[in-house]
């Protein structure tokens, strides 16, 4: 293995992760310097709905496609969401497996599983790019960051898919590109919309807390 690949797999990733962490922490400090809204009102709703239940329900919402009408009626979109995010986890995991646990990739089933997950995410990424370009409403709400983040992730998926077998002996280019994109991705994420997962636990926490307190969460389904 060349020095440059070794650097890309380890030192570069560590530096990128450190930068990401610093930016994330400063982002959280910035956010939490805003005062928190306070709810003074007495609890409403049936005893079966509480703040705690609301929070748990809100967090678990994403695992329950039946919970929201928007996911219940658009299961295809929900499936895309699942595939895309499973792919992200697999591609990120790969960046740790290759340098630190390369022996795992000797298992053919794992290579196949990772390629299947990342490959599916790539296909979804392509679909999402086309959808964002083709649908007027998506175009209207999209910023350059939205397009770039999507293209970046989709490109990253492509190289991650090819890097999964970790065959550096047969050429290092694919692996080098994958790790350099991963590093860029890690540094770029906190500045982009991809950082939404940083907000997710908090936004859902507050919304769930309020809705639970007021007796709305967990939602009683209304479909026939």
């Amino acid at each position, binding site marked *: 293995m060349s020095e440059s690949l070794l650097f890309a797999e380890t030192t570069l990733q560590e530096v990128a992760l450190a930068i990401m962490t610093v930016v994330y922490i400063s982002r959280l400090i910035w956010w*939490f310097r805003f005062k*928190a809204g306070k709810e*003074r*009102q*007495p609890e409403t709703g049936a005893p079966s709905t509480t703040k705690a239940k609301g929070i748990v329900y809100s967090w678990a919402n*994403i695992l329950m496609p039946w919970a929201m009408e928007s996911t219940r009626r658009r299961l295809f979109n929900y499936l895309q969401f699942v595939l895309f995010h499973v792919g992200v986890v697999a591609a990120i995991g790969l960046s740790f497996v290759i340098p630190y646990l390369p022996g795992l990739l000797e298992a053919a089933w794992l290579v196949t599983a990772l390629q299947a997950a990342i490959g599916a995410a790539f296909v979804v990424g392509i679909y999402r790019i086309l959808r964002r370009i083709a649908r007027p409403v998506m*175009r209207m709400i999209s910023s*350059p960051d*939205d397009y770039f983040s999507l293209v970046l992730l989709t490109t990253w998926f492509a190289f991650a898919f090819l890097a999964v077998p970790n065959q550096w002996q047969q050429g290092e280019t694919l692996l080098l590109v994958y790790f350099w994109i991963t590093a860029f991705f890690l540094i770029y994420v906190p500045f982009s919309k991809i950082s939404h997962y940083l907000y997710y636990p908090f936004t859902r926490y*507050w919304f769930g807390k309020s809705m639970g307190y007021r007796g709305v969460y967990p939602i009683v389904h209304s479909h026939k």
Partner: protein
Amino acid sequence: MASRPRSYKAQKVIDRLGQKLNRQVVGSLAACVHCGMCTESCHYVLANPDDPTFAPAYKADRLRKLFKRHYDWTGRVLPWWVNAQSVYTDEELQELKDIVFGKCTNCRRCSVNCPMGVDFATFNRMARGLLVHVGIMPEGVAAVSKDQWEIGNQMGVLKEDYLETVEWMSDEVVDEMGDDKAAIPMDKKDVNIVYTINPREIKYDPRTIANAAKIFYAAGESWTMPSEGWDMTNFGLFSGDDDLGGAVARRVYDKVHDLNGKILVMSECGHGYRSTRCEGPNWAGYDIDFEMESSVVTMLRYIKEGRIRVDKSKNPGAFTYHDSCNFARSCGMFEEPRELLNLVTNDFREMYPNRAENYCCTGGGGAMSMAEYTPQRLKSAKVKADQLRATGAKYVVTSCHNCEDGLNDLIKHYKLDMEVTQLVNLVAEALIVDKKEAVAEVAAKAAPAAELAGYTILVVDDEPDMREFLTTVLEDNGATVLTAADGDLGLEMARTHKPDLMTLDLSMPGTDGAKVYETMRKEHDLKGIKVCVVTGKPELRKLIYDRDIQRPEGYLDKPIAEDSLLLNLRKILEVGSEKS
């Protein structure tokens, strides 16, 4: 390059945004990934599928871009990259006004459908508040807010009108119950319940007050209505003005303290309930030390405790229930109204979707006071109309006065054969009273109807059927009726005969109703004639209500139910007129 000049108002909006941001709102502003999942949850989008500017994420971005440009580092450093953008001119603020007031009813349906937990409605309300802070708002919002600040209620009902109307209803209940103890108490101290209402009940639907009084009487309740702080509605919720919200809520809470009441009960009003019960303590910074509940809960409790008995056969017909967004989606009042409805009717048909997923009546968020957006609102109401139609019900019940108006509008617009009512009316109708009282009720009902005897009423309407209907009903009830088929003739007859009251259609050939009304209010000899607007085109209301002239004493939507017509005309004639 010289920086672009910014108007005073635009700068104030930016500064105010910084003051209003809190952790939750910042989270909602920062977390949107523009996934578009919220799009089809909005009734405006469903009615305008080809117009992406109705999409919740697009509307939300109008404020988000401002936040990003001034308060989020990514937008400050690379504004074009994240679509961060500032505002510079008053015209841009006007455009923002048309979005946050005209294209969203703050119904919160998109909020509960956002995978990220972004609460669009909350920051749409905040955006409204920023604009209101610099005086940019629909005229109707300004007028109603002014009334609530200055007069203490959002319909500008003067104290004497309020007291007279309650007293009138009190007399009616006493007559009907045959018992002086059924009178409506006013400012009685140390009571169990302080009952607050929506001023719409005073202005247009006082029967709900009488019906509530009957129920309290039958339950043997210790209760009172307050002479001040009686309006539990709160336009601060709609205008985004937390200061107004706090002042209005505090007025109500203070009165409950003055009277040493144990429970503050709010009549059926979705936004009133949310404002007073849920948001008011936050706006007012007030820690509540008494209980608060909706009259729906109170009525249900009476039945469950056996304090009142009901006979559901007295409410024949098929009923459905419309969940008010504020009452249900924002306050969790889902099952109580359904349980009560099932106790007082035989044929309840669920509407789909319902509860937290129900569609807005389309009149929420103060939309009924924003006449300039009426065509847009009625177009978006198609989804609600389809929902109503699918139930096959004759009556739609709602625990919200705002929804009642919104639903009435769309029922007329989409020509649905339905009527809107509230639970208080159904409970009162189903009430089983003892034999003595029943006799009194029968006697009261059997009394000869000459309620308008001695009054001369001029009917001005170009529709022959409507003139005939009004003439028949009014003459049957003792009034002397004159008719005019157009505005010019109406004015001429008013000058000649000086009637006590004129019913005035707005849409007429020649001189229209708005012009007739303006002339009536300007001409010295005609000023004293009371006017009740009767129209089938609610979008024309702005012709009168947006003018800087005294408002008419009454307003009725066509088609008119006979009892509603009589009640409202009697109120106008017997209970004094509105403020100037």
